[in-house]
Structure formats: C-alpha cells, structure tokens
C-alpha cells in the first residue's frame, strides 16, 4: 500500500472509499447481501457461545434422529419428551452393615471381621413422566482398591413403578483390583439377551412404559476368604439419561449429535474457505494479469497458454483426485481451489491493463523514467483493484460451493465440521429413510443463503465499479 504514504494521497484515497460506499449504499440488493454475510460472520465468530456442545465429538445428546425441539407446538408431536438427564444420589438402605459414604460418590469399605458374606444395598429414585422413550443409558465409573483376600460383586437393578425388576448391570464375582467406565445402553444386545427380550423389541419402551417413580438398586456384596480380608469400592458420577425424542433448535443426527452445533461451526469453515480461496486466487489473478498485460511479449504468450491449459482441465474431477492423493486436508483444499481459480480474473485484469497501458498517465510515468515495477505497483494495480475486488467477492460463492461439493462427496477434511460434510453424512446415514429433513435442509439452506449473499454483494459491487453495466438495468 505504498500509495497511502503522503497525506494528499491518503485524503484522495479516503474520498474514493467514501464515494464508493455511497454508491454501494444505493444498491439495496448489495446491502442485503452485505447484511446476510455479516450475520454469518457474527455466527462464525460466536459459534462456541451459540452452542454448548463440541461439533465433532458430542454424541448422544438425544436419541438418534431426534426431531427439533420446537415441533412440540404441533399437536401430533406435543408429547415428545426432551432428554432427561438424572444425576443420581445414592441412599443407604436401612439395617445394612455399611461403612463409607454415599451421595454422589459411593464408597463401600470392607474391613476384617467374621467370615460371613456382607451385602450393601443403596438405592436412588427418579421420576419419568413422559411417553415411553426409544433409548436410554446409564453411565458411571467404579473402581476397587486395596483388595485383599476378598471376593466382591456388584449389580444394579431397576424397579419400575408397577414393581417389575430388571437387572441392568452385573459385575460377577471378582477378587482382583479392577476399575471401569461403564455405560449401560438400551440398544446393547447383551442387555437385551440377559433381560430375555426378542430381537425386535425396544427395551427402553418396555422398561419405561409407565409414568412414575423408578428406583435403581445398587447391590455390593463382599465375601471374605480370610479374617484379614479388606477392600474398598468407589462408584461415582452416576448418571441416568433417558434420551429425548426432540432436541434443541434443529434436532439430532444419526448418532444423536446436535445439528445446530454443527451448523454454526460450519459457518466458520465455509467463510474461511470462501474468503481465503477468493483472496488467494484473486492475488494470483491480479499479479498474472497486470504483469502479462503490461510486459506483453513472451511472458504474456506463455502465461496465456498456461491459462488456456488450466481452462481445459476438468476442475472438479481433478480436484477430487488431488485431494484424494495428497490428503483430505483443509489446507490442500484451499490451495488447490486457489490454484485452479485465478484464470478468469487474470484475463479480465489483463484486458483492462492492455487499455491502461496506452493511457496518458502511464505514458507520463514511463517518460519521466519510472521503472516497470514502479508503474505496475503504483499506477496499474491501484487502477485494477476495484474490478478485482468485485470479482473477488463473486468468486467466494464458487469456492464455498466447491468445498461443499468436495465434502459432500466425502473428500472433505474429516477434522473440521463443514456444511458439505453434514450433507454427506445425512445422505449416507439414513436421513432419507428417517425423513430427517431437519438434517438435510439447514446445511443446504445455509450454503445457499451465504453464497447468494455473496452473489448479491458481488453484483452490486460490479455495477459500482463497471459503470457500463449500470446503463443496462
């Protein structure tokens, strides 16, 4: 930005910017586009605040294909429950020999004394008052320590309001130190077999068929093998989650991950990719266009032949292949899109420079002994920047669409959440058979509206910088 150094030039520049802004402000469609883009920029900046979950690793926040939360305003969906998450506090049952603590963390301790088997029973209750769910899970972690000459076993049983009991989890007799993070899932086939249900039956629906108070009973048994036996078992972070059939703003995907989270984080990647690609390819395009246009001759001929070759390459198939061969990496994707995206702009700039080259002020500069570099940087580049800016904005949607296509076909970076990837997953993992429009429509609409916003903005800019176009409308 060498041309900003003196004060007069700065005022001229500021005046031009102001004039430009006034002109742009008259284009309603451009302002609308700008507003939408700013809206997405805000979403991208505040993405972590807008959603409490991790976009890549937050599964089972509700049941798979949970509907959006607001569908409950419709009568046919009004009974659908949201996720019910119970932090369980264990209470000691009366009359048992129990040494240790209870509450959120249960510590059962056995100390030497006699040879008979000792049992500890703890219970906890919670209410379930909605229609039968499709899925639930029970999660906790437990660890035993200082086990000496001691056999122990653990089991958790659930009692329904009507009094039936189901053995949810069992750790058969052990005599060594062990610890585990346990998740008992309703969809676990082992659990289904143990409870004696058939393949097609949904355990969650059967177990929670009644509204009312459910009781969990934790049973710990110690069987000493000598009179110096001792041991301690700790069980904590018990959580019982009945997965909801509706969730959040936009529901859930096939693994119960929040779609709204993926959507807002996807805005970041799309904007980043779109703008980075556009800036990179515009820079190459301006450079090539100005240099070839001004220098002419062999350089011009060579570069224009390269442009011809690049224009003959099948863009999407080649890009897919390159990404496949060199790694599904966001950096490569941006790089490849930029490398293959500058030809059109460079031709445009070149034709503009060809006419600028013959103007009086360039001739004056040349006559007064300015170097080629000086003319290019100080006279030509500032004059082609407005055109380049308009076409830069117009090339953003192309880049966003290309990234979306790549991700949709499964060639996106697996480490970033993108809209294309959401559509890829929706297409591949049953959004159709589950009629999960809330998984398909939001990412597609987001891509469309963001791209259209850039298109509107770009067209308005184009009309500002290309006065010839203004006459037409």
């Amino acid at each position, binding site marked *: 930005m060498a041309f900003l150094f003196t004060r007069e030039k700065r005022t001229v520049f500021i005046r031009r910017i102001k004039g430009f802004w006034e002109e742009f402000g008259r284009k309603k469609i451009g302002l609308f586009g700008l507003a939408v883009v700013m809206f997405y920029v805000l979403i991208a900046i505040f993405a972590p605040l807008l959603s409490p979950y991790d976009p890549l690793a937050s599964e089972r926040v509700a049941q798979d294909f949970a509907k959006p939360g607001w569908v409950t305003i419709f009568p046919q969906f009004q009974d659908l429950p949201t996720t019910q998450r119970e932090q369980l506090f264990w209470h000691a049952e009366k009359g048992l020999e129990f040494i240790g603590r209870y509450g959120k963390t249960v510590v059962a301790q056995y100390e030497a004394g006699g040879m008979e088997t000792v049992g500890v029973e703890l219970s906890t209750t919670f209410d379930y008052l909605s229609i039968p769910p499709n899925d639930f899970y029970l999660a906790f972690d437990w660890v035993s320590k200082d086990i000496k000459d001691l056999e122990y076993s653990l089991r958790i049983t659930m009692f329904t309001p009507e009094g039936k009991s189901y053995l949810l989890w069992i750790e058969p007799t052990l005599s060594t130190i062990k610890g585990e993070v346990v998740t008992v899932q309703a969809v676990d086939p082992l659990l289904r077999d143990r409870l004696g249900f058939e393949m097609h039956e949904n355990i969650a629906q059967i177990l929670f068929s009644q509204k009312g108070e459910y009781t969990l009973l934790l049973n710990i048994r110690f069987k000493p093998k000598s009179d110096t036996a001792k041991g301690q078992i700790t069980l904590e972070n018990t959580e019982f989650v009945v997965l909801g059939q509706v969730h959040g703003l936009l529901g859930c995907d096939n693994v119960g991950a929040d779609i709204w989270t993926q959507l807002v984080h996807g805005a970041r990647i799309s904007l980043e990719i779109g703008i980075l690609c556009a800036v990179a390819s515009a820079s190459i395009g301006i450079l090539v266009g100005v240099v070839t246009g001004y220098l002419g001759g062999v350089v011009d001929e060579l570069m224009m032949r390269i442009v011809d070759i690049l224009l*003959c390459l*099948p863009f*999407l*198939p080649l890009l897919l292949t390159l990404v*496949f*061969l060199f790694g599904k990496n966001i950096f490569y994707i941006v790089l490849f899109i930029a490398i293959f995206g500058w030809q059109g702009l460079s031709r445009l700039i070149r034709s503009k420079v060809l006419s600028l080259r013959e103007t009086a002020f360039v001739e004056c500069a040349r006559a007064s002994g300015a170097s080629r570099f000086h003319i290019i940087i100080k006279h030509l580049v500032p004059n082609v920047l407005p055109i380049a800016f308009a076409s830069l904005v117009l090339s953003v949607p192309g880049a966003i669409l290309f990234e979306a296509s790549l991700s949709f*076909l499964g060639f996106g970076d697996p480490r970033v959440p993108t809209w294309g990837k959401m559509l890829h997953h929706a297409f591949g993992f049953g*959004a159709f058979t589950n009629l999960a429009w809330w998984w*398909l429509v939001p990412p597609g609409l987001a891509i469309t509206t963001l791209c259209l916003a850039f298109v509107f903005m770009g067209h308005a800019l184009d009309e500002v910088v290309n006065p010839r176009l203004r006459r037409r409308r």
Partner: protein
Amino acid sequence: MREYLIKRIIVSILILWVIASLNFVIFQVLSPISPEKTVIDPRMTPEVRLRLRGLFGLDEDMHIRYIKYVINMFTWNFGVSFTSMEPVVDELSIRLPSTVLLLGLALIGTILVGIPLGILAASRRGSKLDVVAIGSGLVTWGLPTFFIQLLFMLFFCYYASVVFGFRIFPPSGISSRPPPIDPLAYMADVALHLALPLITLIIAGFGSWALYTRSMLVDALTQDYIVTARAKGLTERTVLYRHAFRSTLPPIVTMIALSIPGIISGAMITEWIFTLPGVGRWYLNSMLAADYPVVQAVLFIYAVLMICANLSSDIIYGVLDPRIRVGSRR
C-alpha cells in the same frame, strides 16, 4: 480460416500433451500412493511380482514409461483396469450411454427452458417475468445442485412413500431390476428413473441461460439497427426474433459449446446421488479404489472433451458471425 484452424489444432494437441504429462506426473511421480503399491501385494512371490510389473509396465525406467504413457494416451489405449481387469475402453463404452443420455437431455432441457425465458424477459423488461428471470439466474450462482437433488429425493421419493403410499419417482438406478423385457416398457422405465435427475438439473441450470440470453438481448435491443428496424414499421416480433435475437446467436451457441465440459464433470455428483451407472460415478469409485488407469483415462477424456468444445465454439463463432475476424487475438 484454414490457417487459423490448423494453428488452433496444433495448439490443442500441445495442450493435450501437457495435460497427459501432468497426468503422468501427478499419478506416477508425485502421488504418495504409487501404482506399484496398489498392484503388488507384499505377500506375492517374486515371480508373480515380476510378471505383474511387466504386465502393467512398471519395470521400465521413468522416461521410457513416460514416452509409452503419452503414446498410449494419444492412441486411446488406456490399459487395463486394476479392479475389474478389463480394458478401460470397454468399461467406458458400457458406462457412456447413461451419461450421454442424461447430460444430453439435461442440456437440451435447460436450453429449452432458459433461452425462451430470457427472450421473454428481455422483451418485457421490468415485468414480473423479468424479475423471475434475473432472480433465477442469480440463484443458480449460489444454489448447490446437489442440495436441490437431495430435497427432491427426500420429498418425491421418501415423503411421498409415507404420504401417498408409493414413491412417485424411484430414487436410484437407471432402470428397474430386473429391467422390463418389452422395449417400450423399458424406455418408459428408464424415463421414469431419469426424470428426477433431469428435472433437478434443469431447475439448477436454466437460470444462468435465461440471465445470459436476457443480458445479451437487452444489449442488442439498444443498438441503432433495432431503432432503424422499428422505424421501418416492422412488428415487434420480427424485430425481436429476426433482428435482435439473431445477433445474439453466436455468443449463445458458443456458450452452449463451452458449457458441455462443465456439465459433464458436474454430473458426477448427480450420478453419485441417484446411483446412475455413468462415467462420473465410475470415476469416483475407481478413485476410491486407487484404480489409476481408469482415473487417468477419464481425466484425459474430460480434457479432450473440453478442448474439442473450445475448438468447436471458436469455429461456430467464426461461421455464425462473419464480423469476427478469426485469427485475431482473443
């Protein structure tokens, strides 16, 4: 004209050679997954390895391989597919009809919808129709085709089967399995299978044609000879079609020729979504299986198509518009 043509053809062949070389460099030199690794299993015996290397021409020096490669590409000899062990050309000829059928119909459909819309919009500037034409043109810039396709698939195949009890359109394949024996029934079956991809491609594509035709025509309608034609007392219809539209034909025909390659590579996603047995889907599957002969061949054929389209657009332009002095720089 002839001199120019010969020059263009020579340049095109040079470009093809560069593209073939690029292909070679990308797949055989730079690629981290070398063809050697894809063909040869480490558990194979040395004799088998040697035979395989010989079969796929991997036992020669790089420069000899390169020369052979370029010659093979230009003589349409693309080798043998790694996965099916059939010649690539045979495989291609099985898959080409479906792609050509879909793309040909899609191109014709978009033009038949787009250009008349553009003409109407230009002749009634400022009307609602004009707004529709401009709007649909702008929307195509930002609307991913695959999103329309997914939406249509969701509503016409899956929601329809819930609401009406049957699928209005089949969601995948180009014909029922097994296909009907009666040729008429077979044609109807294929038409039903291609309906959804076609409709979505036309919806996604017609807008840009409408916008392009409109802006061309609007430009033409402000020319002096139109004023003259009107002053002569010709009907508006004659002015529009015989004077204005005719002058916009060369750029439009050029655009048609130039749009063919883009449609071909763009149809890859369509074939992927609707599980059509075409070239694009074959390309994607081959790539995922690291089947290099197929990938290289299809890339090369795409490039040939693009060059042909470029060349033919130039020629058509020259033929249709005598004012254009071919041979002058673009």
